[in-house]
Structures are given as structure tokens and as C-alpha cells.
């Protein structure tokens, strides 16, 4: 089982470190041919405009969509990754995968001056609360029928799941708490075993 980390730009190293701590193999994905042999994919935090533009230019949007056609290729997007997975985006709308039936509101909490840390209750992870790091973070404005909310903060949905897809508005990779990475790894393993 091998998890890819989309490596156009952003906090790739931090995701790598978390999977390493879980004893899992990860690989950096820059080109469509790098997708061969992957069991799942993480789209890290970064600038969604930049990542979307370069994904499209290097054929990664089509290649990843092709890979998901079977419906058993898990993808997890953190922050920019959430925007790139969202079907609809409010505000300037980058090129993206659009695989998850949500509407994302970009930088909805405000500019960097409003970036914050807050403890988030995530029932699927049990207690204690999860240390949420929100950096120019998006919100999920609308949830499609097949999408399940996993966590909210101040009445805004900040984590959701839809079949093989997981989205978080915050950055678990910037913490020392492995639980969200573990949650995704279990998802990948479940699909991998079929």
C-alpha cells in the first residue's frame, strides 16, 4: 500500500513526515506517470490557484479523474486540497478535480490576520478534541446529499467525507496528532483490500 502526495507546491514535507511516523510508504507525485501503483492520494495545503493551474497544465487533473473512475481510489484534500476537490467554489475559481459534491468558500474566515488555532470535536476520532490549524482556510457552504459532515466549528462544516473522499479545511499535517492521517490511511487500506 502506497499513498501519493501531490507535490506541485505546498506543505508536502509535513504530510510525508506524518505518514512516516505511521510507518507508511508515501511518494511525491509531480507527473501523471507517478500515479501508477498508488492506493490513495493526498492533496496538501498550498495555493489552490497555483496548484490547480499546474495540475491542469501537466495533465494531472485528467489523469487523477481517470484513476477515480472505478470509484475506489481514496483522495484526501487539506485546505487548498479541499478547494481542488470541491464541485463548486465561491470566489475566484481555480482549475480543479471537482469530485466532492460541496460548495467551498475560499478564504472565508478572512485574510491571514484571521488565521487561527482551535480545538475541534471530531466524533469519528473520539476524544480528546483535535487541534485544528486554520490558515486562510475555506469553509464548506453547501453539502451534497451523499456527503457526510464529520466536524464543525462555530456552525461551519470544516471536515466532510463522501465515499472514498475526505476533505478538511484545517491542516492535520502541521500538528503532532496523527489521528486524521490514521483515519485516512484506514480508508485507503479498506479500499485497497476491496
Amino acid at each position: 500500500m502506497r499513498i501519493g502526495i501531490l507535490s506541485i507546491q505546498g506543505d508536502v514535507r509535513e504530510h510525508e513526515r506524518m505518514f512516516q511516523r505511521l510507518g507508511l510508504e508515501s511518494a511525491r507525485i509531480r507527473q501523471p506517470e507517478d500515479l501508477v501503483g498508488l492506493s490513495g492520494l493526498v492533496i496538501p495545503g498550498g495555493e489552490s490557484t497555483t496548484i490547480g493551474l499546474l495540475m491542469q497544465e501537466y495533465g494531472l487533473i485528467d489523469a487523477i479523474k481517470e484513476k477515480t473512475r472505478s470509484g475506489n481510489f481514496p483522495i484526501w484534500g487539506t485546505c487548498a486540497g479541499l478547494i481542488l476537490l470541491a464541485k463548486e467554489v465561491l470566489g475566484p475559481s481555480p482549475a480543479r478535480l471537482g469530485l466532492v459534491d460541496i460548495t467551498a468558500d475560499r478564504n472565508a474566515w478572512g485574510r491571514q490576520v484571521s488565521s487561527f488555532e482551535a480545538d475541534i470535536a471530531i466524533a469519528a476520532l473520539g476524544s480528546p478534541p483535535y487541534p485544528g490549524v486554520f490558515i486562510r482556510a475555506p469553509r464548506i457552504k453547501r453539502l451534497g446529499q451523499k456527503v457526510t459532515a464529520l466536524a464543525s466549528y462555530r456552525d461551519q462544516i470544516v471536515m466532510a467525507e463522501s465515499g472514498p473522499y475526505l476533505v478538511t479545511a484545517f491542516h492535520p499535517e502541521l500538528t503532532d496528532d496523527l489521528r486524521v492521517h490514521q483515519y485516512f490511511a484506514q480508508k485507503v487500506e479498506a479500499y485497497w483490500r476491496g
Partner: protein
Amino acid sequence: MANSERGTFKVKSGLAEMLKGGVIMDVTNREQAMIAEKAGAVAVMALERVPSDIRKAGGVARMADPRKVKEIMQAVSIPVMAKVRIGHFVEAQVLEALEVDYIDESEVLTPADDQFHIDKWAFRIPFVCGARDLGEALRRIAEGAAMIRTKGEPGTGNVVEAVRHLRTVNSQIRRLVATPDAELPDLAKELGAPLSLVQEVKVLGRLPVVNFSAGGVASPADAALMMQLGADGIFVGSGIFKSSDPAAMANAVVRATLHYQDAQIIAEVSENIGESMPGLEMKTLQAEDRMQERGY
């Protein structure tokens, strides 16, 4: 932690982590900002003039007009940075009031304090600061900087100083990592840096914050060179909008930074992008024109 906390060091340094592998471009108006965003820049630096024009103009260089900064913030959705003079904490208060995303306490502008840099812990907005060596980088981090850029020599289009500074920081880190714990206090004294940060660098094997390269990148190959030497990302000042075809140069520098290890792609993107900015040979610079000497 209280229920929610803004402006923590984690969210400050975290934004810099999100910019890694990307290119930050100097822009002086909304049109340039839009060209930068369209080319794939991860952020823009809002300025009154690019460094090579600051050199030509002479006199005292200050923070940009707030109207200019606001105009650029409205034009793009990527983060917007802006520069303040070294030690000028009121210019920083003004930029914080404007809600820019990052403040660059920069040697490109004329220093306002010849003894103290800004106390960056006093702000909710993160700061990036320049450094020529490890000691300088750690002093800035001790003052609260959440991102470092090696200085190079701004506005020259000559990458030699950028290379020197990044190599210096990296070789000092290698030496630090190999130093026995018992000798770290002495090394901290030699570097002029707090012992706690010196110890942290030993554990991490790198700076505790992101380190970009600045000051002299003027071609796609220059950007890839700095990435191969270990930069986390690239600042391009005059290199984009003083070239003959800014949109093409901006595109090429972004793609060379992404694929910095792939010479084939660097070759492809370097084709037909017009002329790089005219460069300056270091020997022709007078001592007082060397911006890198500003700050301590």
C-alpha cells in the same frame, strides 16, 4: 489553548509552509499582480518600485502607498506581502491595519533603526526577514520572524550573492549538526544567536522556519539553481518585470521552480522568453550601494 487563538506562531510559520516550492513576485500595480497570479505565483510582494528602480532613484526608500497595497490586494486571491523599513514598527502597524498577509522587514528599503529590528512577536501578521548567514537568520527568528529569505543582492539580476548566502547558511547548519551538545553554547556565542534556537536547529537539521532564496534570480535556470541548492522557494524581485517579456518570464520561472530537478523541462521553459533583466557585476557596486549590509 483558549477555545480559539489567532496570530499564533504556528499559523504564522504555517502560511510560509504553504508557499513552499513556489515563487513570490515583486509587483508594483494591479496589472502586474494579475500577470503574476496568472503565471502561477504563490504570492505577490506589493511595492512602490522594484529594487533595481530603487537603486536608480536613490534617496530614502519607504513603505509603499497604502492605496497601492490595497489596489493589489483587491486584484488577486493569492496572499499579498508588503515591505517595511528595518526597525520601522509603525510602517508595520500600518500594513497590519491594511491586513496584508505577510510583512517583509526588508533591507531593500532604507533602514529606520540602526540598532534594533522590529519586535515581531508584537504583531498578529507574520514577518519574513533577510539573512546572509545562520546567526543572522536565528536572530531574526528570535525576534519573531516566521519565515527567512537569504538576502542575495537585490536589484542586480546577478545570482552570485544569493548563492553565497544560501551556501553559507547550509554549510553552517551542517557544521552545527556535527557539533557535540556540550560545545553548542560556544557555537551560539560565535553565531550571535540564542542557544535554544541553536539546539533546535541541531534536532531538526534545518532552520525552524521556511527559508526562501532572494536577491538576484533573473532566469528560470537561476530559480532552479537556488532550489537545487536547498531553497524552499523563490522570491523574484526585479527579475520578472524588468525582463523584456514579463508574462513569459513569470511562467518560465514558476515552471522551472516546480521541476527544478528536470533539466529537460528547464530547457523547454527557457526557450523564447525574451531577455532577462540587464545585470550588474558586484565589483561595480559601491560599498554604500550594497543593500545586503543593512541589518545585523
